[in-house]
């Protein structure tokens, strides 16, 4: 499913630094196909250090989308640039708990460019002891509810969010139920006596 995998380091080509390191030469040799075909995604990948990408295709379709990994430090700058170069439709923001993997939490942003018919799913990872991702509400108004949902169900903090309260669960709920260490549980139901007679 993954047609291409590249890193921006490799995409930068054979710079002097990469040539100086012996093991980087092989990566540099891949630089010809390291940048994606899409101009917009290539612009994003070449603008930030540490972005990796992966082009996927949908099931039963020829259409593709691009998965990106973005360091959390570049999160807001990345989203702002993506919006400005054409990925101006906010589609989704999902949070995932990769329990027992580090960094533990993932936040995935799904953006769409209606003009060029391209989609990116950009994700970032944050550790368990500091589950903080800067808010995107200043970039996309639609991030508001989705970040509240991620806070409510996974427990990721979004500093700068205008109203970071629980959205689906009651305000006095304890814990974040979509974390993997939150038991599925059940409300005990007290059945009426009398079945022994039957």
């Amino acid at each position, binding site marked *: *499913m993954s047609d291409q995998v590249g890193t921006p380091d490799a995409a930068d080509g054979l710079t002097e630094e990469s040539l100086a390191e012996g093991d980087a030469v092989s990566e540099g040799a891949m630089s010809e196909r390291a940048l994606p075909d899409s101009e917009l995604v290539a612009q994003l990948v070449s603008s930030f250090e540490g972005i990796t990408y992966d082009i*996927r295709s*949908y*099931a*039963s*379709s*020829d*259409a593709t*989308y691009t*998965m990106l990994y973005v360091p959390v430090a570049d999160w807001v700058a990345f989203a702002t640039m993506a919006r400005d170069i054409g990925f*101006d*439709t*906010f*589609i*989704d923001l*999902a*949070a*995932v*708990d*990769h329990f027992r993997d580090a960094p533990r939490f993932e936040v*995935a942003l*799904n953006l769409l460019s*209606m003009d060029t*018919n391209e*989609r990116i*799913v950009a*994700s970032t990872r944050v550790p368990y002891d500091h589950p903080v991702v800067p808010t995107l509400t200043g970039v*996309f*108004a*639609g991030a*508001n*509810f*989705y970040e509240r*949902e991620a806070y409510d*169900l996974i427990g990721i903090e979004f500093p700068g969010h205008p109203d970071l309260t*629980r*959205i*689906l*669960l*009651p305000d006095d709920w304890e814990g974040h*139920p*979509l974390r993997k260490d939150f038991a*599925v549980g059940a409300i005990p139901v007290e059945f009426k006596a009398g079945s022994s007679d039957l």
Partner: protein
Amino acid sequence: MTDVHDTSDIDAGEDVLEEDAADGRDPENGQDAENGQDQANGEDTASVETERRHLHEVWVSGTEERFPFSAATNEGAQELLPREEDPALAIQAGVAVEDDYVTEPEVSDEERQIINMGPQHPSTHGVLRLQMELEGETIRRVKPIVGYLHTGMEKTAEVLNYAQGSTNVTRMDYLAPFHNELVYSLTVEQLLGIDVPERANAIRVLMTELNRVSSHLLWAATMGMDIGALSMMIYGWREREVCLDFFEKTTGLRMNHNYIRPGGVAADLPDGWEDDVDNLIDVVNEGVSEYEELLNENPIFLDRTMGVGVITPEECKQYGVTGPIARASGLAWDLRKAAPYSGIDQYEFDVPTGLHGDVHDRYLVRIAEIRESLRIVAQVKESMPRGDYRNPDPKVTPPPRKRIDESMEALIHHFKLFTEGIVVPPGTAYQSVEGPRGELGCYLVSKGGARPWRMHWRAPSFAAVQALPAMMTDSLVADVVAALASADPVLGDVDR
């Protein structure tokens, strides 16, 4: 005193008001139509009339200093209000409603009130609560409050295996169960890297497009009821019933079908399905024509929908609003064209768009979409391929019962599929389809094994509810119901 004077002018009508003011500036030479007639009758009448007019004109704006006795009562400027700001005139012309809540630039806290609409309000189509800050009849701020129907279905999905998953997701957006099942199945198939046979694709397109029809029919029915066209509700339900009958015949259930599954569909189409589809297309097309006859030129319906609940294309993009709402705002975006799934690109259909982004354009777009979906259904019916309706991969599809008696392999596969389930390789996938309410997406994380690690649901209604303040702010409270109905949120989809 000014008020009294205003009223008398208004009673005399707008033309007289202007002429009075003109006469006031030049009372000796001023002649209006009435006065001209009076003068023709004789001098006595004329002098009485002049006297009366002098008394009358004492209060006309800008004329006070011309009369000796006006100086004694001069209290400063006694200007008439500019006509467009005159509340009494506005009331008379019918552009303002006379009540206790005439909006003023500075509204004190006593006149500002917070009203909760829902969660038990019938027009909220579920358990949506809107907290509205009103200044008189005008909404200044809206806050949608959701979560009353939250049942933790994304958590439930993590304890069900992939074969059981579609029973769960079909209950999320209960008006578009086939779309839910389809996007879930496509996501799992994307991770598995498998395709489904052509016949399965055609059946999936057939069922999802019929589902779009039934969902839009229900929307037309409830929107009509919300706006006051009560008979619309009965008609919408009447045609939807034909769709649900076909669903029941095909899947066994009217809702929550669990029909589209990873690897294909659960069963082949029933005998005689072509006749049922033919009948359905005729009945629904005829019904939709009746709706148009009922509503399209209905002045009350037009007044309540045109220019109401407007949302711009830019706001749609910012809030992630897709589907008929975005198309009514002029965004020609349809995933069936942009990222066609299940071979839907081989059928001919158009994407209707609106211009104004108001409730009325959403109505037109949805009605047009019903017809387009029926066009697709007719084409699917003509070109339905023969063959299997499930992927033959034994790791995904259980073997037929007969094979279990004959083959050890089949027995093992059957046992593994029904004890462990479909094993999906690790990975992350996103897939989306064009649901009746917009982009319906599934973000699925697998760590290997037979159960999803995490399933995030991109619900179109969630984005639509979030965009409600953009539609409702600074509109009248009476338009809330129309705007809400046009957004078509399904709370099962919002809260999941």
